[in-house]
């Protein structure tokens, strides 16, 4: 019953915003400025029928994924180093603060000069995801229960087992919460990098072309794709997080 109520509410909210979009498009009355939801959806289906659509989407997703996959171990490594050494922490913290406060477009423009054009989306994704993950993993390390660490010291537990059984379980909630927040950010930043750097075979290039050739239906259709990727990736992280929680709960039910 609760699920049905939730589904009805979600459909109602979606219909409300689509109606608002439809009304705005009708008021504007020019599909070259604002196409209707139906026109956008139709264009999305047309694009989905082209093989390039799936190739460009997959390539964009791959570039973003590479950035995230490099950011994850880097965040864990640097968070561990910074937690273990006050000097490394003092040296590294300003760099992370700088990464967090620099506008994404500045990073993209700097990256155009510094790195190979094709690696820009991955590099920008990394720059967006790394500080969020790093700070949360470092927080997780600092919140690790001291009494458990003391206990493991008394029993002479190896450092590998300490990491596996005490540190990782303490860090996990912080890490997954940060990952959920940052994957949506990563998709948006990655596509923005593709637009500014005009990366061939990418969603960003298609967006840029749609703007240049005055094709607002294409622009909106690709925007829908970006939103969908963002939501799917966030949901995937959520599912992973729930799976981890469920594994503990199920095991406790045995």
């Amino acid at each position: 019953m609760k699920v049905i109520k939730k589904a009805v509410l979600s459909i109602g909210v979606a219909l409300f915003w689509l109606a608002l979009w439809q009304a705005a498009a009708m008021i504007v009355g020019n599909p070259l400025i604002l196409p209707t939801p139906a026109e956008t959806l139709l264009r999305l289906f047309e694009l989905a029928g082209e093989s390039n659509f799936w190739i460009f989407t997959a390539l964009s997703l791959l570039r973003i994924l590479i950035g995230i996959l490099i950011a994850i171990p880097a965040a864990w490594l640097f968070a561990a180093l910074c937690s273990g050494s006050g000097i490394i922490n003092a040296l590294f913290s300003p760099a992370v603060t700088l990464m967090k406060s620099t506008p994404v477009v500045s990073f993209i423009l700097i990256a155009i000069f510094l790195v190979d054009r094709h690696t820009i989306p991955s590099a920008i994704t990394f720059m967006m995801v790394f500080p969020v993950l790093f700070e949360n993993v470092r927080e997780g390390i600092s919140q690790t229960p001291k009494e458990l660490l003391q206990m493991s010291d008394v029993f002479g537990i190896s450092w590998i087992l300490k990491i596996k059984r005490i540190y990782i379980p303490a860090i996990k909630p912080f890490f997954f919460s940060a990952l959920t927040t940052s994957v949506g950010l990563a998709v948006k930043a990655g596509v923005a990098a593709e637009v500014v750097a005009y990366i061939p075979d990418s969603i960003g290039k298609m967006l840029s072309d749609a703007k240049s050739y005055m094709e607002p239906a294409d622009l909106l259709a690709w925007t829908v794709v970006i939103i969908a990727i963002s939501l799917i990736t966030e949901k995937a992280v959520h599912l992973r997080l729930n799976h981890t929680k469920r594994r503990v709960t199920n095991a406790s039910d045995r």
Partner: protein
Amino acid sequence: MLRIDNLCKSFDGKEVIKGLSISFPQSGFVAICGPSGCGKSTLLHIIAGIEKPSSGQIVFDDRSHSISMSFQEPRLLPDRTALQNVNFVLGDKKATLSRAKELLWALDIRNVDLYPEELSGGMKARVSIARALAKKADIYIFDEPFANLDKETALTCVDVIKKETAGALTIAVLHDTELAEKISDKVIYFK
């Protein structure tokens, strides 16, 4: 085997232990009794190496001594079962699970797959005792191990502890002086 010489310990200027000297026997069950806040747990923490003394020293006759401990609070890993918590100090290996299970069963914990949040206070205390017994040591330390247990269960635990720690030194802080006198080879009273 273990000697404490003129030990002092202060926390934020407040002296908890002042000029304490004790000699412990090579083996046997030694109970420490005394009112709250007299430094019993602090002494155990210093022996276990968790706290450092402000002055004085702890002398171990054997250079390579090993210590195992059951803390006042159980300090169990929250996302591991009772069995896995005991097996943790045995290196978390499959091969040692039977030993961990044997200790839990001896202490009357039959449902070894329960997580700490599903255990009662008394069960957690017994898992903590089992974990301390799992590690082979020269000195076993128990900080109020029977605080959450009824007398009958406490006596069962005493039997298991004495059997498992035979030949080693066991130091236990106990608040029940009657029980301490009954089960210990030596009782030390703190003021």
